[in-house]
């Protein structure tokens, strides 16, 4: 394919070259089978011994085979297009496989141990080697901590979002907006370290569920502020003007007209934030201390939490502990996914309306 031939075919106008040479559809399965066969041969003669490699190598061989065939028959442009198309599909598969594998493993390994007894018992008096025990205490802890965190974070974040959208002008509002971004990128372990430094070390308080919920609050704030901000911005300006025109004062307009209009979107944002912090481990590790017993009072004494429970059980060498970790992981995923799906359903329903 020299440049001169290209320009002459398009330039002389001697008939239109609408049809390109095309690989027959049957060629692709043939190449795929060839790639797999070749991989099997490699498998036999070399030291390849894992499924991950098998998939990777046959994928690469298929890519090479297809590209060579395409260059020969269809030319380099079409070959490049096919090459990238295959690459994009492979990228998608490559990404979906581990992500699905995580979910599948958690379900498969967790479902055996997950029963009513597991949900309704604590770990009090249960050693790592013992078969019993459950997550009741951790479930209580997680629910109380995320409830408290929402209680602190949601009103505060709403006020910040209202300020940014309805009142904020100039430097202060730009600065606040910038630092909301900074908080968004704050590693969760830093939130835990801050509560450790401030609440536990500086104020001399004991670790408690409350301390954990403070750390989670810091992580929830930026998510809720951003979500609420987006939603408040979407409220049409005419709605506000209509309310002003009726002589309704600004604060009532915001509380009675703007907020209710934006409410479904804000609820979605809050639920996504809750789902996000419900799975946080690092900040809790530093603030709630963890316990094997049931502690209903988040303000006094150490509490447990689901993610922390998984972390501590997963670190044990005994299979009984590992089984508990998987079952707790399944519970946590179910909780988080439930929150996510409900949140997105609310968002979708609100959009339809």
């Amino acid at each position, binding site marked *: 394919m020299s440049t001169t031939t290209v320009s002459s075919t398009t330039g002389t106008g001697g008939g239109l070259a609408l049809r390109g040479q095309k690989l027959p559809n049957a060629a692709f399965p043939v190449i795929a089978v060839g790639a797999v066969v070749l991989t099997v041969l490699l498998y036999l003669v070399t030291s390849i*011994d*894992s*499924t991950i*490699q098998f998939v990777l190598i046959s994928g690469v061989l298929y890519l090479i085979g297809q590209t060579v065939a395409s260059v020969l028959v269809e030319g380099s442009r079409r070959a*490049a297009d096919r090459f*990238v*198309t295959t*690459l*994009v599909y492979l*990228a*998608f598969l490559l*990404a979906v496989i*581990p*992500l699905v594998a*995580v*979910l599948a493993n*958690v379900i498969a390994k967790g479902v055996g141990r997950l029963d009513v007894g597991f949900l309704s018992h604590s770990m009090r008096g249960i050693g790592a080697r013992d078969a019993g025990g459950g997550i009741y205490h951790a479930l209580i802890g997680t629910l109380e901590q995320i409830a408290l965190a929402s209680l602190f974070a949601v009103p*505060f974040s709403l006020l910040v979002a209202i*300020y*940014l959208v309805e*009142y*904020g002008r100039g430097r*202060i*509002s730009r600065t*606040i907006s910038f630092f909301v*971004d*900074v*908080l968004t*990128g*704050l590693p*969760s*372990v*830093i939130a835990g*370290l*801050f509560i*450790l*430094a401030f609440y536990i*070390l*500086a104020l001399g308080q004991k670790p408690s569920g409350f301390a954990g919920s403070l750390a989670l609050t*810091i992580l929830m*704030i930026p998510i809720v502020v951003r979500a609420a901000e987006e939603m408040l*911005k979407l409220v049409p*300006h005419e709605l*506000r003007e209509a309310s002003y025109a009726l002589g309704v*004062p*600004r*604060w009532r307009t915001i509380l009675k007209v703007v907020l209710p209009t934006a409410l479904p979107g804000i609820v979605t944002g809050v639920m*996504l934030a809750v789902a996000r912090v*419900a799975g*946080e*481990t*690092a900040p809790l590790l*530093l603030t709630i201390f963890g316990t094997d017993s049931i502690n209903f009072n988040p303000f006094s004494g150490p509490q447990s939490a689901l*993610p922390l429970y*998984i*972390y501590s059980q*997963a670190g044990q060498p005994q299979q009984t502990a590992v089984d508990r970790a998987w079952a707790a*992981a399944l519970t946590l*995923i179910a909780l988080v996914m439930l929150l996510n*799906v409900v949140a997105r359903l609310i968002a979708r329903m609100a959009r339809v309306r």
Partner: protein
Amino acid sequence: MTSDPDGPRTHLSGDGGSVATTEPTSSSDAARVSPVDVFFKNLTRTAGLGLLALIAAIAVFLVVKATSALNANTGHFLTTTEWFPNASPPFFGVAALLFGTLLTAVIAMVIAVPVAVGIALFITVYAPRRLAMPLAFIVDLLAAVPSVIFGLWGLLVLVPRMDGLQMWLTDYFGWIPLFATDNGAVGRSIFVASVVLAIMILPIVAALSREVFLQVPIAHKEAALALGATRWEMIRAAVLPYGKPGVISASMLGLGRAMGETIAVALVLPASFGISWKILAPAGNTIAANVANGFAEANNTGRGALIASGLVLFIVTMIVNMAARAVIARRREFSGAAS
């Protein structure tokens, strides 16, 4: 002149319609402002300022609580690789941890970004429309899987399965220093931790890239197609140049997230100290993972030392995140001026 779209053609305008939020200026209707209005405005403003105070408090308390430990430290905090803050005298430094943090995060990004761009292209350009929405939904859901679960899976499922691949890499590519090992020993390595991190940041990078690819004006794509571009050539001429700042920004946000990730890394890495480029060897640690691993046995100085390392992480992630925002902001100015 009016435009005349024949039939339901969709025109995407390049200038994203931002919602105007102007309101009557307070000076013109100052007479009507009630005390409640003033109170409410001040309440929201106080919340906003409270957020600034929170950030300031985070910085101040991390510094204050780190200082006493740093004063007691007999090593140089930034260059020492050992971590003995609980000994007397305490001797510790963040060098090995910072190295591990940066190395795992960068490798994770190198693995995740091309795949994430592939996913974003698949959803926005290649997948049939009926499939695109559910796929995007699934990717979003996977972003919500808690990190402790990725850690659990990484430790118990992925680590044993990666042994074969790691041994193969060191057998055949061991001459590359990065893939060298000591006597072929592989295991809970920087590489495996990076793969776990890559899987974790994949959904977020893919989701952000997808957003920018969706914003590419149809006019640009049609311009390329009308010139006789194949799909890939259209992507190269219209989609990638337009989406590049967004992808860079998304990658850096992913990098920031990978650096701050704690529990998954703490579960996968064996928590050793030392600077080594042998990414397949069972060694390595990160700042965040070290906080999780070292907290339980830390005494007062030990906690201060962990807080000091957290301060370093705070600064590094903040720099990365700000750089990411700067890239996107510059791009916004650029496209705003062009349209």
